[in-house]
């Protein structure tokens, strides 16, 4: 025998002890993760319980008011919708264009490095700083006022890095051979991009846009700084009018409020009735952001599975 029996027993005992630590650790870690998830679930459920009875059709069609029973989120969700439209219209073209430039046209030199460093830094800037920038530049220097337009532009600045980075990643995942095939047929960069690269990277770009939009819908701080009011009992004028030229842009310049700010306003009041309204608004807001994030995750998953180079 090359090893005496007691030694094998000792080795076996030690392995059992080590594996016990393995199991203890795995259980602890699983407990930690479950704890996070359960805590969140508990909090969400609590909020739902507090607020769901306020979620009636009237809730969506009433303005906020001093009386809790008559309050609703009409101005808030319309405001969110208007602001997000401006955000998307501003951020997507610029962001996608920048992403295309950096991935396809740019040469690797100091300027491109500088741009890349800037984008990474901007992604890490606290949102409230964008609010400060907008307050000084958009509201005062350019005189756009505390308006939907300002809000949309501010949020566009905030989500620009996300859109750019996702666009770049989407384009980067297209193999070089596809680029080369397009050029070999005589396409210019613009044609190759329009006809091949953009269509193939649509999924990834869309994912980035949705994630950015979801962030923008839930973000409050920058809009507080630029002066989104917390008590708005009217709607901006409609974009479609019945007189020539049938389209109005006046709504861009009106004061506004958005969903998260309405919730913030209600949560800051001492009366419990308003806390319930805040809970209701929170539920609606969460449904929107959760749905968008889930959509983005699903899109990313489906997009990765569908195109197999």
């Amino acid at each position, binding site marked *: *025998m090359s090893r005496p029996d007691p030694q094998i027993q000792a*080795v076996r005992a030690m*392995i059992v002890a080590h594996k016990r630590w393995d199991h203890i650790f795995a259980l602890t870690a699983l407990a930690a993760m479950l704890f996070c998830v359960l805590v969140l679930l508990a909090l969400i459920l609590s909020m739902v319980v507090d607020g769901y009875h306020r979620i009636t059709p009237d809730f969506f069609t009433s303005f906020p008011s001093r009386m809790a029973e008559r309050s609703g989120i009409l101005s808030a969700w319309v405001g969110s919708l208007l602001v997000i439209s401006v955000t998307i219209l501003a951020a997507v073209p610029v962001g996608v264009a920048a992403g295309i430039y950096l991935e396809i046209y740019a040469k690797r030199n100091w300027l491109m490095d500088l741009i890349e460093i800037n984008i990474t830094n901007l992604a890490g800037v606290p949102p409230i700083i964008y609010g400060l920038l907008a307050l000084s530049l958009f509201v005062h220097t350019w005189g756009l006022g505390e308006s939907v337009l300002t809000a949309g532009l501010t949020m566009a600045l905030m989500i620009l890095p996300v859109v750019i980075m996702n666009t770049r990643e989407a384009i980067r995942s297209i193999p070089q051979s596809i680029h080369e095939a397009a050029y070999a047929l005589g396409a210019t960069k613009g044609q190759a991009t329009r006809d091949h690269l953009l269509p193939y990277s649509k999924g990834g770009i869309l994912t980035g846009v949705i994630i950015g939009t979801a962030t923008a819908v839930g973000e409050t701080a920058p809009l507080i700084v630029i002066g989104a009011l917390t008590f708005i009992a009217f709607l901006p004028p409609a974009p479609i009018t019945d007189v020539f030229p049938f389209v109005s842009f006046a709504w861009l310049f009106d004061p506004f409020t958005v969903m998260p700010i309405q919730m913030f306003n209600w949560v800051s009041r001492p009366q419990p009735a308003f806390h319930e309204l805040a809970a209701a608004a929170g539920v609606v807001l969460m449904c929107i952001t959760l749905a968008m994030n889930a959509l983005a995750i699903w899109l990313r998953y489906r997009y990765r599975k569908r195109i197999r180079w």
Partner: protein
Amino acid sequence: MLHPASTAPNASHGSEIFAQAEPKAEARNLNFFYSGGVQALKSINLHLAANSVTALIGPSGCGKSTFLRCFNRMHDLYPGNRYEGQIVINPGGINILGADIDPIEVRMRISMVFQKPNPFPKSIYENVAYGLRVRGVRQSGLIDEKVEDALRGAALWDEVKDRLHQLAFNLSGGQQQRLCIARALATDPEILLFDEPTSALDPIATDSIEDLIGHLKSKVTILIVTHNMHQAARVSNHTAFMHMGELIEFGPTDVIFTNPKVKRTEDYITGRYG
């Protein structure tokens, strides 16, 4: 006295050799299936003689690495793999593929050196000491001793004794591989598995590793997979030729290389196909 296992067609066993001493390890009717059902090994029967070097040769994809990795149950790390048959270790006749055997225990008796040197991102000393720490050895005096023994056994001590606490990454490729050998030796394994240990190294480093293998066999039993036939001829006592998951021929190295009994073996050795 142990009998060689049942024979597969066309396999030669040189049973005269094994009549004299108990083999260190025996594969009995070993089949292996990767997850998804692909069968990578078909009815392998093979002996490893104690304190000798057995080489596995064969074209790419013939299953030699797969077979090697059965010995230390590396396949268990990836779900879905399945073993059929036995690998029996002596003394004791224990089937290490048994469901009741813990792979960790197997790996404490059977060590492995990989194709690409894979030192841990730690100091040279800590790399060699790792196996001891995993086994609960704590006295630093004892660890110092074993580290030095292992490094001497791997013919690396003189080159690194003054920089034991520097990062292992700073060593050359050949030195890193010898470090991995020292790491494997530090725990006094009974069997040492080599998975194409020199395919990533230059000829001089290859030479020193082959030399080392020659010296090591007096202490451990060695099973080495190599894609280089000449290496097999240089270092091994017995050679097994595999093809498409089957063991085609097995015998003393000089017999296999000068007078193979199976035509396919002869074709491979003479280069008629690779």
